């Protein structure tokens, strides 16, 4: 039985299907029709709902896409839907702000926006008001609206973050916390949905049920259900596995559990690696980042996964666990071919480890996509580079989107290392790039564009590292 709180009601849900999505549950089983389906692929935000979890002594609210989240992962959490925000005929402040600013036209995107606004409202406001615009955008970039052009919604967002008040959810929070602690996290199985709470149990389940799929955030996996119409009979949920959700820090390294979400990853590493932080802010949307995990991004083995280039540039190590125990690989040995990784059938990713203190050098990260927000990379470059007296020392360059898997650009690295950081070196590196990669043409871009842009990104890196006087990134204007 999956136990959770739906708005204020305690729910005990029999799982007749492991792959029941939260959206199906809400709309078809509960007839709660406020939450909409616009795409069923995590891209539009019409289905946005909110999860509340107890952290410390308080509730933390996170928006997510209910269309690609499986109901089993609700266990131990409060699920909040748009129906819960207004109370006794009084709109919630975020709803009232949307009305006051004329933030809805056809209204179909509106419940989703309201839920994202609600999370923005609950989010501790950044210290500096100059970051307000960024914060608003960060919370709302995963909600598409085809009607308004967004301006009134942004106005509503600015208003609500400037006027926080206690709401009925705050007043009920003690009650909710009690409800949730009654449930606890301990539930190991509900129908075909398995919730191990340690790595050993996980290893055993994986061994006993080779046909079961591992489920972390589900932001890749659920598309197999909603887009490819597959039935996933058995799911093993990683979100409760202690070793996978932990972060272990020593003086030499930081070991990040595979089920660490991307929002959490940003909190962990963002300050050390600002360019990773900037990348993470453009990884999917807030809804995606709240649930999507490090392990999922890597295990998926996609050539356009955004973390792989960064981890390769940082020379991270990936630890896999299986019946045979643990083994650790360098990140650039993990990917084998298009969507093929070194993972054996009985293995899962336990963690990713990065050296500390950070290696000497600078981490540069560039993501190029058709749309700034919530778009998959056409090309993604991550590079760790050291400089001495205008010469390049070590440099580790990894590209996404340039080959069937994320890959180091060895020839290019070679062309750069030891040479002066100037235009002529970059030209040599450009030539080397075309030996490293023969990219393909696809729906996102042509091979020619990819190759040209990859070379141009090297140029941008050179200009930036040489401390040029002129502006060089659009975002800096």
């Amino acid at each position, binding site marked *: 039985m999956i136990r959770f709180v739906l708005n204020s009601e305690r729910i005990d849900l029999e799982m007749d299907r492991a792959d029941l999505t939260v959206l199906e549950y809400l709309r*078809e089983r509960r007839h*709660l029709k*406020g*939450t*909409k*389906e*616009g*795409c069923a*692929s995590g*891209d539009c935000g*019409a289905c946005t709902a909110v999860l509340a979890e107890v952290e410390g002594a308080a509730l933390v609210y996170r928006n997510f896409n209910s269309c690609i989240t499986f109901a089993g992962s609700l266990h131990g959490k409060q699920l909040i*839907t*748009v129906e819960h*925000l207004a109370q006794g005929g009084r*709109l919630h402040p975020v*709803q009232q702000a*949307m*009305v006051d600013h*004329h933030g*809805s*036209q*056809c*209204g*179909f*995107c*509106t*419940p989703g926006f*309201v839920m994202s606004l609600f999370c923005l409202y609950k989010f501790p406001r950044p210290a500096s008001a100059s970051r307000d*615009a960024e914060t608003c*955008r960060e919370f*709302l*970039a995963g909600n*598409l609206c*085809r*009607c*308004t*052009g*967004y*301006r*009134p919604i*942004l106005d509503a967002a600015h208003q609500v973050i400037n006027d926080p008040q206690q709401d009925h959810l705050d007043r009920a929070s003690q009650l909710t916390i009690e409800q949730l602690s009654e449930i606890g996290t301990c539930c190991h199985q509900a129908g075909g949905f398995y919730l191990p709470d340690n790595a050993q149990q996980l290893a055993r389940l994986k061994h006993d049920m080779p046909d079961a799929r591992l489920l972390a955030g589900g932001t890749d996996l659920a598309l197999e259900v909603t*887009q490819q*119409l597959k039935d996933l009979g058995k799911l093993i949920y990683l979100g409760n596995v202690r070793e996978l959700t932990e972060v272990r820090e020593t003086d030499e390294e930081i070991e990040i559990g595979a089920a660490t979400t991307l929002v959490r990853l940003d909190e962990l590493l963002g300050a050390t690696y600002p360019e990773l932080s900037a990348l993470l802010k453009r990884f999917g949307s807030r809804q995606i980042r709240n649930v999507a995990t490090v392990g999922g991004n890597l295990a998926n083995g996609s050539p356009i996964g955004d973390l792989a280039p960064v981890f390769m540039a940082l020379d991270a190590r990936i630890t896999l666990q299986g019946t045979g125990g643990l083994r650790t690989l360098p990140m650039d040995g993990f990917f084998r071919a298009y969507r093929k990784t070194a993972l054996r059938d009985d293995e899962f990713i336990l963690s990713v480890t990065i050296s500390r203190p950070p290696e000497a050098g600078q981490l540069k990260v560039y993501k*190029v996509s*058709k*749309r*700034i*927000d919530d*778009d*998959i990379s056409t090309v993604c470059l991550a590079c760790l580079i050291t400089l001495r007296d205008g010469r390049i020392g070590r440099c580790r360059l990894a590209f996404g989107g340039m080959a069937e898997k994320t890959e180091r650009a060895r020839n290019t690295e070679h062309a750069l290392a030891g040479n002066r950081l100037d235009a002529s070196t970059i030209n040599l590196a450009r030539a080397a790039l075309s030996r490293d990669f023969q990219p393909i043409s696809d*729906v996102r871009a042509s091979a020619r*564009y990819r190759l*040209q*842009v990859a070379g141009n990104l090297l140029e*941008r890196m050179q200009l930036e590292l040489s401390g040029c006087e*002129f*502006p*060089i990134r*659009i975002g800096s*204007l």
Partner: protein
Amino acid sequence: MSRGTVHPEPVATGRALAHDSARKHVSGDALYVDDHPPLARQYHACIGTSPIAHGTLDFMDLAPVHNAPGVVDVITANDIPGSVDIGPVFPGDPLFAERTIEYLGQPLFAVAATSQKLARQAATLALVRTTEAEPVLDLDMAIAREFHVRPPHRMQRGDVPYNLEHAVHRIRGVMRVGGQEHFYLEGQVSLAIPGEDGGMTVHTSCQNPTETQKLVAQVLDLPMNHVDVVTRRMGGGFGGKETQGAAWSCIAAVLASRTGIAVTCRLSRRDDMIMTGKRHNFRNDYDVGFDDSGRITAIRYRLAGQCGYSPDLSDAIVDRAMFHCDNAYYLPHVMIDGLRCKTHTASNTAFRGFGGPQGMIAMETVIDEIAFSLGKDPLEVRKTNFYNTSDRNLTPYHQAIGHFNIPEIIGQLEETCDYRNRREAIRRFNASSPILKKGLALTPVKFGISFTVTHLNQAGALVHVYTDGSIHLNHGGTEMGQGLMIKVAQIVAEEFKVPTERIVVSATRTDKIPNTSPTAASAGTDLNGMAALNAARKIRSRLVEFLSDRYKVPQREIAFTAQGVRTGDRTLGFEEVVRQAWLGRVSLSATGHYKTPGIHYDRETASGHPFFYFANGAAASEVVIDTLTGEHRLLRTDIIHDAGASINPAVDVGQIEGGFIQGLGWLTSEELKWDPSGKLLSDSPATYKIPAIGDTPPVFNVRILENRPNEEATVYRSKAVGEPPLMLAISAWCAIRDAIGAATDHSTFPKLNAPATPEEVLRVIREIRRPS
């Protein structure tokens, strides 16, 4: 105040009232078709489609579909009781392909099952055998082969060959502009509920309930009076639910009538993107002559629209492109050929602007190129070519421009956006910025209002006043987010001088308002607002007559005011008047009808007066491009738009901003791609990118032109505002070109196509820098 000549202040019109459903939108209480309260039994439909773009359907084995879990019925073209063709204007749109297949994704059969998922899974199980024929997938190939869905049409005035021949300067060019997926947030959906006598009630998200009623009746072989179509609201339409909202209703209705159980047909996002048509992409060729000042002396256009496999609305759409390839400029000698090219792709259809944008962008390209060739600021060349209302006032279709407020708008905008200083600041920025380049453009929009198919310019409405003074309002227009219902409610409220809260607007229903036109052509308020006004006026004059009789007061001394109905010396509450009138056996219900006066167009001579009036506006946009990746961002946009005397400024500003951003998506990030077999690759929001919140410019100043009521007698002197603002986004696209010019030392005119994706921007820069 003297009696009898009172002009009470408006109580409802001109006010920035919230959308009538705003509170329901934000609380999740607004019901869309798929939110219909659960029925005791209900099936779900899914459609099986063609795997090839062109060829014949030889054989289908549907047994595996039938035998799949949950399946209750499977239908093909052979199972349609009535007519299979549902072409809206011309035949050519079979509900299911019978033998000839004309696009990849064309419906072949439909399955009904007990759940949506089971229906979708079952639909993948059909064994389909086809014989492939060579498809025409490419617009250029269709042009070369003269492969058309409808014959070409020509508009002309003056002597073009001679004046081109003798022009001081002459430029020939080609520009291409892409299509656009509607991406209404709510996909296509219909719910058919079988009723008595074989009848059917259909709840649907569509812009044209009457057309749906007619087609469902035809498909079921029933008279129209057996079918009721209900549309409460759409989660966006944008033209994509004008004709192409009907098929799903027909399919649901056939399945519902066969099973006797209600059937929902809701397309998945991918099916929606693959099966339904989009905005037409165009190839626009031009040959223009002009003098040293940049003034156009003659121009010849060939506008070729890619229509897809069937005519649908393409005749009128390509016509509208032709009607707008003058935009705001006088073309002394002009010849325009419009081609309706056929390809084996989904049938392209209405999309906000209806071809107008594709024509207008050709004109703005020509202006830019003239300015470039003369080394002038494009804004100067724009001004040089504007229409006036005296000697340069004749359009290519021989309608004289009677009122022209674009110079005024441009003048104001140039001031308020600080065009001159910013042009200079941008020049300085670019001089010191080798990688990032900025660009600026200020472009006008002049858009003709009315359906160019004359008979569609009519509407009906129904107003009931109940004995408690509450008012029920219906009209033929549908609500898709554009605020039509609140605007029409404001109009009716104004007539009775009551608060709009007193009025309930309910679903659009064919059993209440028959024989309606689609809600389209921006004409929703113009037409339905007038029809509702006429209905309300009938009731009002009955009330006046009654009061005059009853209180022996001359009719001219009776006035509706916010305080009540002034009747001579006394003022009666509206409820009281209504109650008394009812007791006095006065009818408190009326229908209203309206037809737009004075419009006509003769396609034989390509001349007439197709537009009642023009809606105008202008936008100035500043962009920055990254010459290393082609990425770009809109930094600032200023807009002044002419909405006449706005009935609801909040709603109108919403249309302006929303239209602009939608146009921005069309011209910058929304790219449709097919593979060589005709399969749509950009078939989901993961690969088709409409603007997100970060694409809204950080500085976005939008203003409605003040104190300019419509010169034509429209409802409360307002102007249509649904479509025109989309074209304001051309300013952003031209600004990108301006920035590319700066990146390439203004050495060659940047032959930018649309959408100006990062890849397209980089392509143009590359071609200029390294001519091959």
